[in-house]
């Protein structure tokens, strides 16, 4: 019995366990403030909110596993939201294609980032930063001169806020579908294996005859697409797209991935951890707002708690 238990703990990363532990602590702390904190309704609502972050964090995790980072999240989210609502203004066909169009635009941005990182060998930190500025520039141009159509379609609204089965939010189903696909992708496919290999040592992956550059480009494309998808849903959630709607998502996405035990230098991490990280971050934000702390205090506590949690379990091994 102890054998199986210890082998179970050896297989599940300690950071992942710690992240789930922190979730429980947060729930307990939250329940002290409000009795409704542990109610199914509240928790489902949290999971709905978490779904948007979950999509973004999924893309971020893919990129972080490669040892890269995607700083273009804020404006690619906005691109997703704005482009899908733009398509919605082009008549019935546009309305029908609004969601895929928004996602495709994000994938295209991601594709360019991926090309820059994989083939031009520009550090992702700087290239995605540039892509973020380009995306911002394009969106500013679009909204600056005139007031464009910015209302989401009914489908977007339904996907983001509706509840079809068992009162479970549709957005959560979206995240579950994307998450399941990602777990399969990382664990069972050549693509996933290649992602981990590149994150560990790209040189060795290349010499093993793996298509490293293509995989890097595809991972960035996925990240862009997922960010845009989140943007589409966010636009559906608030019925419209607006500038800087993606700004509040960069730090939480990175934090969720890292708190979930993924090595920021690449090569190690599990999707279960990212799920834990996303829920953790969402709960933390929720508690801070339930406690009615002002924005200043929220930012301060938010940053401090992330640092604190990482100090507890996210430390690197000492080099010697």
């Amino acid at each position: 019995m102890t054998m199986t238990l210890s082998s179970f703990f050896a297989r599940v990363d300690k950071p992942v366990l710690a992240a789930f532990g922190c979730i429980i602590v947060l729930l307990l702390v939250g329940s002290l403030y409000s009795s409704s904190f542990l109610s199914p309704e509240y928790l489902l609502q949290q999971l709905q909110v978490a779904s948007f972050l979950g999509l973004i964090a999924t893309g971020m995790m893919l990129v972080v596993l490669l040892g890269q980072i995607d700083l273009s999240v804020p404006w690619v989210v906005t691109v997703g939201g704005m482009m899908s609502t733009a398509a919605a203004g082009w008549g019935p066909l546009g309305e029908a294609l609004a969601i895929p169009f928004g996602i495709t635009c994000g994938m295209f941005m991601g594709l360019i980032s991926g090309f820059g990182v994989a083939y031009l060998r520009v550090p992702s930190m700087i290239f995605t930063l540039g892509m973020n500025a380009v995306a911002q520039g394009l969106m500013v141009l679009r909204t600056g001169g005139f007031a464009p159509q910015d209302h989401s379609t009914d489908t977007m609204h339904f996907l983001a806020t509706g509840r079809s089965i068992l009162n479970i939010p549709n957005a959560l189903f979206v995240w579950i579908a994307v998450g399941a696909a990602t777990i399969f992708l990382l664990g069972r496919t050549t693509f996933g294996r290649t992602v981990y290999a590149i994150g560990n040592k790209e040189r060795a992956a290349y010499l093993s005859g793996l298509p490293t550059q293509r995989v890097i480009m595809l991972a960035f494309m996925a990240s862009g697409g997922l960010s845009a998808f989140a943007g589409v849903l966010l636009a559906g959630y608030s019925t419209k797209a607006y500038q800087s709607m993606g700004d509040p998502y960069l730090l939480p996405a990175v934090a969720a991935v890292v708190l979930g035990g993924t090595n920021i230098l690449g090569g190690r991490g599990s999707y279960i951890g990212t799920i834990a990280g996303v829920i953790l971050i969402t709960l933390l934000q929720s508690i801070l707002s339930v406690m009615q702390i002002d924005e200043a205090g929220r930012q301060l506590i938010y940053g401090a708690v992330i640092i604190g949690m990482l100090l507890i379990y996210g430390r690197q091994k000492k080099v010697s």
Partner: protein
Amino acid sequence: MGDFRYWLAENKGTLLAVAVFVIMFGIYTGNHTAGFSGMVVTTAANKGVLLALVAMAQTLVVLTAGIDLSVGMVFVLANCLASQLVVGSALETTFGVVVVLLAGVICGALNGIIVIYGRLQPIVTTLATGAMFYGIALWLRPIPGGDVNSDLADALTEQLPGGIPTSLVVLLGIVLVVWIPLRRSEVGRAIYAIGSSEPAAYMSGVNIDRARLTAYIVSGLLSACGGLMLTFITYSGEASATIGGSYTLNSIAAVVIGGVSLFGGAGSAIGAIFGAFVLRTIGDLLFVFDFDPLWQPLFQGVILLGAVTLGSLRLLRIKNRLDLFG
């Protein structure tokens, strides 16, 4: 002769940034309706110096092969603090300046301590501390406002009798007092050493922790200098996440354009300063050529991507594909 060759190779990136800036600024002043007037230069200089200081701050950390995503927030925090404290009598003002700079040092030290002793990655650490610094800034100044000692502000942001912008002199002073001695000191060399190869530096008996902590502290100090200058220029403080974020991002762009290696160990704060000037001049150029200001963000992004993509031309010379992977 041989010595010069090595000097040139070492400072290639810096010299390139200087050259690009000189050309761009030439075009700018040549086409500006007011010509090469004092006002034009002073306004441009003030804007450039702010980013230059933050870019210098970024350089220090980047040299250690880290990244500081909190520089912009330290800058904003210093701005908010200065708009509260740097007022009143000479004594009060001096006290205020000291406190603001000290706050920068503390922010930097906090980053450094977490990275060194907490063994967290710089990018995650500074992303989180950045949120904390912003929180403090917001607490200090929930709505924009405040004041600053206008005598000091005017003295530092206008012109010297010769028409030279005072802010440039301030920047030069900071370079001479902070950067040059650091570059030439053992700690400074250690900063380059750990960025270039930390294991080798450790085996060589380099005091790694001291060097890294120094880098973060000086980074915080320089960001705070920038925030102080911002207050002198705007006469007020504003806790704006947008300003902080854009300075952080632009500082990274400036560092790259200035020829500092994001992998650490190579480059110079002088290069980063000119990288910052180049970035600032882009906006002014657009203005001079009557571009719709709406185009500016796109233009900056494209220029940044263009600059880093130009660096990829070196790939064409690579004959062993393994060199692609560093």
